[in-house]
C-alpha cells in the first residue's frame, strides 16, 4: 500500500460501509434480504480472494470450510440449544481446525494437484454430510427457526429473525472481513503472500518459510469462509448439504474473478453483480447456471483482471 494514498484507501472502504449502512433504510424488503445475503457471501469471497488473489493458490474445495462453519454453528444451535454468539464462534472454530488439518495435507501439493486434492477432500466432506443424514438430515437440511434464542445486550433484547438485525449482522460480518483482508494485505505478511504468488522459489530463497505462510493464508481464508458460513446459516436460518457441494466451491471463484482477483473490493463487486445477474436470469430461465458458465468463459477470454482489476489498470493504480 502506498503511503500517500492511505487516507484515500481508507475513505473509499469506509464510504462503501457507510453506503451499505444507509441503503438499509431505503431499499424495499426483497432487496433488503438479498443485500444481506450478498454481504455475507462477499465476506466468503473476500476469504477466497486472500488465497487465490493474494497467495496465488486456486482451491476447489472452499465449500468444505463454508459448510463446516454452517454445520459448526447450526448443529449446536439445533441440538444443544446454545446461544447464537457461541454458535458463531463454534462455526469459526470448526472451519479453523479443519483448515489446519486439511491445509497441512493439501499444501504439500501445488498447482493442478492442489486443485484436485482440495476438490476431493471437499467431496469427502460433502458425501459425509449425506452419509450421516440422521444427524445432518442430508440434502433436506434443517431449519433453525425457533432455535435462535434472543440475545441480551444490556437492557436491549435482540431477536435474530428481525430483518434489521439480520441486515446489520451481515453488514458487521462483511465489514470485519473486509477490515481483516485490508489489514492483512497491507501488512508485511501480505507482502510475503504476494511474493509467494509471484515467485515461490525466490521467496523461499530469501529465507521465508513459504509453507508456513501458505498455511497461514489458507487458515485465515478458511476461517473467514467458516465465519460467513455460520452467519449465513443464522440469517437464512437454514443448513443443508447443498452448501457443501462443488457449486459452492466454484461460486467464490467466479465472484472473485468477476470482481477482480487480488483487489480488496473485487469480491464484493463480483458477488453483488453475479447475485443480481443470477436473480434476474432465473426470472426468465430455470437453467440460470448457464450464466455462470458464460461469465466464467468470457472472463478468462476477454476480461482476465475483472471489474475492479480493470478500474485499477486504467484509472486508479493505487487501489489495494
Amino acid at each position: 500500500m502506498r503511503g500517500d494514498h492511505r487516507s484515500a484507501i481508507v475513505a473509499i472502504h469506509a464510504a462503501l460501509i457507510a453506503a451499505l449502512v444507509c441503503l438499509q433504510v431505503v431499499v424495499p424488503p426483497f432487496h433488503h434480504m438479498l443485500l444481506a445475503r450478498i454481504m455475507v457471501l462477499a465476506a466468503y469471497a473476500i476469504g477466497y480472494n486472500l488465497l487465490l488473489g493474494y497467495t496465488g493458490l486456486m482451491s476447489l474445495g472452499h465449500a468444505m470450510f463454508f459448510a463446516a462453519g454452517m454445520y459448526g454453528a447450526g448443529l449446536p444451535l439445533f441440538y444443544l440449544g446454545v446461544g447464537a454468539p457461541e454458535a458463531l464462534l463454534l462455526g469459526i472454530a470448526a472451519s479453523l481446525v479443519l483448515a489446519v488439518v486439511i491445509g497441512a495435507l493439501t499444501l504439500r501439493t501445488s498447482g493442478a494437484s492442489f486443485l484436485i486434492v482440495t476438490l476431493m477432500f471437499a467431496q469427502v466432506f460433502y458425501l459425509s454430510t449425506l452419509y450421516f443424514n440422521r444427524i445432518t438430515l442430508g440434502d433436506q437440511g434443517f431449519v433453525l427457526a425457533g432455535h435462535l434464542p434472543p440475545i441480551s445486550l444490556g437492557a436491549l433484547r435482540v431477536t435474530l429473525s428481525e430483518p434489521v438485525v439480520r441486515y446489520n449482522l451481515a453488514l458487521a460480518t462483511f465489514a470485519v472481513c473486509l477490515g481483516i483482508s485490508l489489514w492483512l494485505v497491507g501488512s508485511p505478511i501480505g507482502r510475503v503472500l504476494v511474493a509467494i504468488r509471484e515467485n515461490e522459489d525466490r521467496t523461499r530463497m530469501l529465507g521465508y518459510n513459504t509453507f508456513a505462510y501458505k498455511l497461514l493464508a489458507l487458515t485465515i481464508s478458511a476461517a473467514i469462509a467458516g465465519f460467513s458460513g455460520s452467519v449465513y446459516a443464522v440469517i437464512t436460518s437454514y443448513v443443508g448439504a447443498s452448501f457443501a457441494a462443488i457449486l459452492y466451491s466454484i461460486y467464490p471463484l467466479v465472484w472473485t474473478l468477476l470482481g477482480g482477483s487480488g483487489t480488496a473490493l473485487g469480491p464484493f463487486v463480483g458477488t453483488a453483480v453475479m447475485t443480481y445477474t443470477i436473480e434476474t436470469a432465473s426470472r426468465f430461465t430455470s437453467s440460470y447456471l448457464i450464466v455462470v458458465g458464460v461469465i466464467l468463459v468470457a472472463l478468462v477470454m476477454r476480461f482476465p483482471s475483472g471489474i475492479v482489476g480493470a478500474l485499477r489498470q486504467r484509472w486508479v493504480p493505487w487501489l489495494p
Partner: protein
Amino acid sequence: MTLEGRLVLALLEGAVTGCILALTALGLSMVFGVMRIVNVAHGEFFMLGAVSAWYITSTTSSFGLALVAAPIFVAGVAALVNWVILRPIRYEPQATIVATIGLLYILQQLVLSIYGPYARTVSPPFYIRIDFPWFGYSGYKLAVAGLAAALLWATWRVVSATTLGLYMRATQQDQEIAQAFGVPVHRIFGVAFSLGAALAGLAGALIIPTQPAHYLMGLDALLASFTVVIVGGLGSLGGTVAAAFLIGLSDGIVSVFFSPTLARIVSTALVALVLVVKSGGLFGAESA
C-alpha cells in the same frame, strides 16, 4: 447367494466398471499429459456421449450407428471448444481450468434445455444371458468390457506406433524442443483434446444400455476419472489403465459387500492422500 457367488459377481462388475473407467480416464490423462492442462469439463464429454447416443438410437433405432456417431459428435464439440476457447487463451493452466469450469456449466445447462431433466436408457442391442453356477450375467456387459479393452489396445497402438503418437509423445516430453523439430504442437493439442473427448464420449455411449443418460451424470464421471488419473500417475497412460482396474475392482467388491456411499467416502479420501504423499501418483514419475 453364496460367498463365492457374490465375490465372482463383485469381480465381474468391477472388471466392467474398470473397462469403462479406463476408457473415460484415458482421455483425461492424455489431455493432461500432452497439453499440461486439467480439463474440468471432461465428465461433460462423457455425458454428451451418453445423451447423444440415446438421441441417435431413439431416432434411427440403430445402437451401432450411435456408437460411431456419438464419439464423432463429441470430438467435434471438443474441436470447436479448442478452437474458440482454449487456443485464444493459449492453454494457460489457470485460465484453462476456469474456462473449462465455465464450459461444464454451459454444456450441462444446454443439455438440460434441449434434452430435459430425464434419465433415459436404451435397450441393449442383444440379449444374451451368460450362466454362471450362481447367477446369470448380462452378455452385453461382457461385450462392453471386451470392446473397451480392444479400444484401449487400439489407443495404445496409436500412441506407441504411429507418427501422430510419436508427435504426441514428443510434445508431452518437451513442447519447445518438439516444436523446434517441426512438430505442429498446436495441431497436436487440438487432436489430443478431440481424441480425449471422443474416448469419454464413447464410454458414455457404451454404458447407456446399462445405466441411464442424464444431464448431471458428468460430475461423477469427472471425479472418478480424477481418481483414476491421480492413482495412475498424471499423464501416464499405462498407469491410468492399471489404476482403472484397481479402482473398478475395489469399487465392485466394496459396493457388493458394504454401503456404496461409505465406499466412496473412504476411496476418495484415500486417493487424495495418495496425491498428497506422492504427487506424481502411484505409477507416475515423482514430479508432475
